[in-house]
C-alpha cells in the first residue's frame, strides 16, 4: 500500500494482499484501525492477560476434549499406573488417567489447562479491581461492567464444570456440595436437581451434561461476551489517567500498529510461557492419588479451586440454622449458598448505578479515571467488601489453616465469624479515612499554592 509511484519489487505477499483487497476492500479505512489508540499504562494490560489465558484455555481444552470420555460406565483400569490397576472405575476417570499417563503430552496439557483456569480468574479479578477503584465503570461504560461481571460468572461456571469432569473423589465431592446447595432451594431445587442429573444422585447422565456445558455452552458464552466486551471497548474508546495530554475530550495512547501489537504479542507470549512453566513444573490436581469417586466416600481437606473458595467459606462459616416458614423448611445451605452469593453478585453487577445514584451523585459521562482517593466512600466500601470476601475465602480453608497453625478448628471458625462481620467495617472505615485524608491534604496544598493547579485539562469536578 505504497502511496508513491516509485517502481517497487512486488512480492508474493503483495499479490495476495492485492487479491484480497480487490475482493474484501481491506485497505479501506485500515489506516484508522491501525492507528487506533491503546492505553499505554501497564495496569491496562491485566485484562489482556485474562484474554490470553482464555485463548490458552481454549487450545489446551480442545486437546483434552480429543481424549476425554464423559461416561460414568464402569471399566476395569489396566493402564500403567499400578495403584489403580484392576479397579473398576468410570470411563471418565479412566480417560483422565489415560490423558495423564499414556497420551503424549497429555499431563502437561491437563496441567496447563488447570493452571490457566486459575490464572484466568485471578486476572479477571485484578482487572475488575482496577476498573472499580479507578471509576472506569462510570457512564457510558456501565454495560461493559455488567458484561464483565457476567464473564466472571461464566468463568465460575466453566471452572466448576471442569473441576467435576475427571470423576475423581475430589471432583465428585465438589459436585456433591453443589448438588446439595441446589437441593436446598425451596420448591424448585429438587426438581432442577432431578432434571439436571436425569434421575437420582449421582445418576449416569451428569458427566455428559456437564461436559456439554463445559466444552460448548460456557465457552460459547465466554467467547460471545468477550467479543461484545471488546467491541464495546473499541467503540467507546478506553479510559485514561488525566494528564497534560489526556483530557475528558480526547483519547491519548499508542497506535495499534506497531506499538500495541508488539506489546500485546509480547504479553501473549509471556502468558503462554508462564502458564507452560506452571503446567510443566508444578503438579496440580493429582487425581490419580485421590482415586475414583464413590458417593459414600469423602475426604478432608476437600477444597474447591481458589475462585470458588469464598462460596465454600460462606457455607463453612454459616451457623447450622434451619428454620421453617409457613410449613416450608429452609435448609441451612440456602442462605449462604444461594441468597448471599446472589445478593453479592447483584450489588457488584448494579454497582455503576449504585455509584451514580448514591455515592458520587454524578450521572455525567466520564472518560478520565479517578484515583481511589477521589471518591473516599467508594474506596471505603470497595476495600470493606474485598476484606469481607477475603475473610470468607480464608474460611473456605479453615481446616488447612487450623492444622497449619495448630489452632482448634472451632476456634478458627469462631474467630473468622467475628472477623467476617467486624473487620470489613473497620478496614473499610480506615480506607475511607485515608482516602479522605489524602484528598483533603491535596486540596490544602492546592489552595496554598494555586500555581500547582492543573490547567483547563483537568476533569470537570
Amino acid at each position: 500500500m505504497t502511496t508513491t509511484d516509485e517502481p517497487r519489487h512486488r512480492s508474493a505477499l503483495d499479490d495476495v494482499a492485492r487479491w484480497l483487497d480487490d475482493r474484501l476492500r481491506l485497505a479501506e479505512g485500515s489506516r484508522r484501525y491501525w492507528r487506533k489508540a491503546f492505553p499505554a499504562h501497564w495496569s491496562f494490560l491485566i485484562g489482556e492477560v485474562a484474554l490470553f489465558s482464555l485463548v490458552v484455555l481454549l487450545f489446551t481444552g480442545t486437546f483434552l476434549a480429543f481424549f476425554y470420555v464423559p461416561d460414568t460406565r464402569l471399566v476395569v483400569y489396566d493402564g500403567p499406573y499400578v495403584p489403580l490397576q484392576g479397579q473398576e472405575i468410570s470411563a471418565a476417570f479412566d480417560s483422565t488417567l489415560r490423558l495423564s499417563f499414556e497420551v503424549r503430552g497429555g499431563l502437561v496439557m491437563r496441567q496447563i489447562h488447570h493452571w490457566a483456569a486459575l490464572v484466568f480468574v485471578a486476572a479477571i479479578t485484578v482487572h475488575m479491581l482496577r476498573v472499580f477503584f479507578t471509576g472506569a465503570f462510570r457512564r457510558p461504560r456501565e454495560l461493559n461492567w455488567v458484561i464483565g461481571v457476567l464473564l466472571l460468572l461464566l468463568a465460575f461456571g466453566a471452572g466448576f464444570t471442569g473441576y467435576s469432569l475427571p470423576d475423581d473423589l475430589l471432583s465428585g465431592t465438589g459436585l456433591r456440595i453443589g448438588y446439595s446447595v441446589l437441593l436446598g432451594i425451596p420448591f424448585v431445587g429438587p426438581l432442577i436437581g432431578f432434571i439436571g442429573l436425569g434421575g437420582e444422585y449421582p445418576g449416569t447422565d451428569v458427566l455428559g451434561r456437564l461436559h456439554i456445558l463445559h466444552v460448548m455452552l460456557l465457552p460459547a458464552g465466554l467467547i460471545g461476551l468477550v467479543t461484545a466486551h471488546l467491541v464495546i471497548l473499541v467503540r467507546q474508546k478506553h479510559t485514561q489517567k488525566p494528564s497534560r495530554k489526556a483530557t475528558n475530550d480526547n483519547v491519548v495512547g499508542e497506535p495499534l500498529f506497531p506499538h500495541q501489537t508488539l506489546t500485546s504479542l509480547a504479553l501473549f507470549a509471556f502468558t503462554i510461557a508462564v502458564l507452560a512453566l506452571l503446567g510443566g513444573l508444578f503438579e496440580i490436581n493429582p487425581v490419580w492419588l485421590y482415586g475414583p469417586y464413590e458417593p459414600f466416600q469423602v475426604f478432608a481437606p476437600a477444597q474447591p479451586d481458589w475462585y470458588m473458595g469464598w462460596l465454600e467459606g460462606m457455607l463453612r462459616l454459616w451457623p447450622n440454622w434451619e428454620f421453617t416458614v409457613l410449613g416450608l423448611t429452609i435448609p441451612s445451605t440456602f442462605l449462604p449458598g444461594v441468597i448471599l452469593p446472589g445478593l453479592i453478585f447483584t450489588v457488584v453487577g448494579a454497582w455503576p448505578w449504585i455509584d451514580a445514584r448514591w455515592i458520587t451523585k454524578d450521572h455525567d459521562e466520564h472518560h478520565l479515571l479517578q484515583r481511589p482517593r477521589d471518591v473516599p466512600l467508594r474506596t471505603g466500601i470497595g476495600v470493606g467488601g474485598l476484606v469481607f470476601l477475603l475473610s470468607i475465602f480464608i474460611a473456605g480453608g479453615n481446616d488447612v489453616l487450623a492444622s497449619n497453625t495448630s489452632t482448634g478448628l472451632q476456634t478458627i471458625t469462631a474467630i473468622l465469624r467475628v472477623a467476617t462481620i467486624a473487620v470489613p467495617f473497620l478496614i473499610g472505615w480506615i480506607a475511607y479515612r485515608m482516602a479522605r485524608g489524602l484528598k483533603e491534604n491535596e486540596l490544602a496544598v492546592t489552595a496554598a499554592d494555586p500555581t500547582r493547579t492543573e490547567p483547563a485539562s483537568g476533569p470537570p469536578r
Partner: protein
Amino acid sequence: MTAAAPRPTPGRRRTRRALAIATGLVLAVALVNVLFGGGLATAQEDTGEAADDGLLQRGAQIFGAQCALCHGENGRGLPVDGPDGGPPLIGVGPASVDFMIRTGRMPLDNANERMRHREQQMSDQDRRAVVAYVTSLAPGEGPGIPDIDGWEEADLSRGLELFTTHCAACHGPTAAGIAVGQRDISSNLDIATPLEIAEAIRSGPGVMPAFNDEILPEDDVEAIVAWVRDLRERDSPGGLALGRSGPVSEGFIAWALGLGLLMIVMYLLGEKADEDGDDHGRA
C-alpha cells in the same frame, strides 16, 4: 507409691505437684478399692508368668517412674479431671503402648502438652520392657503388635481403595494430615514407619478409631501400609508438589507465581506513571 518417686531433676514445683498427685492417687486407689472390692488391685499378681521376669521388673520400674504419675499405679488410670488424669492402660494391648512410646508421643514431659510425633524418648530395650509390663497387667487383651512383614508385596490397588474408604476422611487423600476437630489434628503419615502405621490402625490412638482384624485383616493392613508408603515414595509425574494440600496450595501458586510473574511482565511492558509527561494527574 512409685507414682510419687521423684524424677532425676525435680524442681520444687514439680515436687509439690507430684506430692499433690500422689495424695490424689492414694485417695483414688482407696475409692476404687472401696467400689470394686479390691478386685483390680490383684491384677498384677495374675500376670508375669509369660514374660521374662527381668524385663517385667525393668518395665514396672520405668512405668512407675515415667507413666504412673498420670496413668496410675499398675496402669489403673487416674480418675481426676484435667490433663493429669491419664486413661487406664489395663487391656489396651501391646500395639497401643508400643506405638505411643515408639513415636515419642509418650511419655510426655508435661501433662499439658499435646501428644505429637517425636524422637523416641527411651531406649528400644526400655520400650520393650514397658510394653511387656503393661501387657502383663491384662495378658492377651487388646491388639498385639501387628506382623506386617509382607507389606512390600501387598496389593497397592487394594491399599488405595481401603485408604480412601477408611483413612482419607481424616488424614486427607495424600495423608498429609488435617484438623479433624477442635483439639485434634490427624497425623501427617509422611514420617510414619510401616510398623507405626499398622499399630495405629490396630490400636486407634487418640480420637482415631481402632480397626480390628475383622474389619481389616492382616492383608488389608499391609495393603494400606503399602499405599501410604507409595504416596511418599512414588515420583510425582506432574512436577513439584508443594505441600500437597490440594487446591489451597494450588491457588497460592497460581496467584503468587502465575499472576505474580505476569504482573511483573506487565509492569515492564507497559508505561509507568512517570513516563511520557504523565504528571500524576490533576493536583
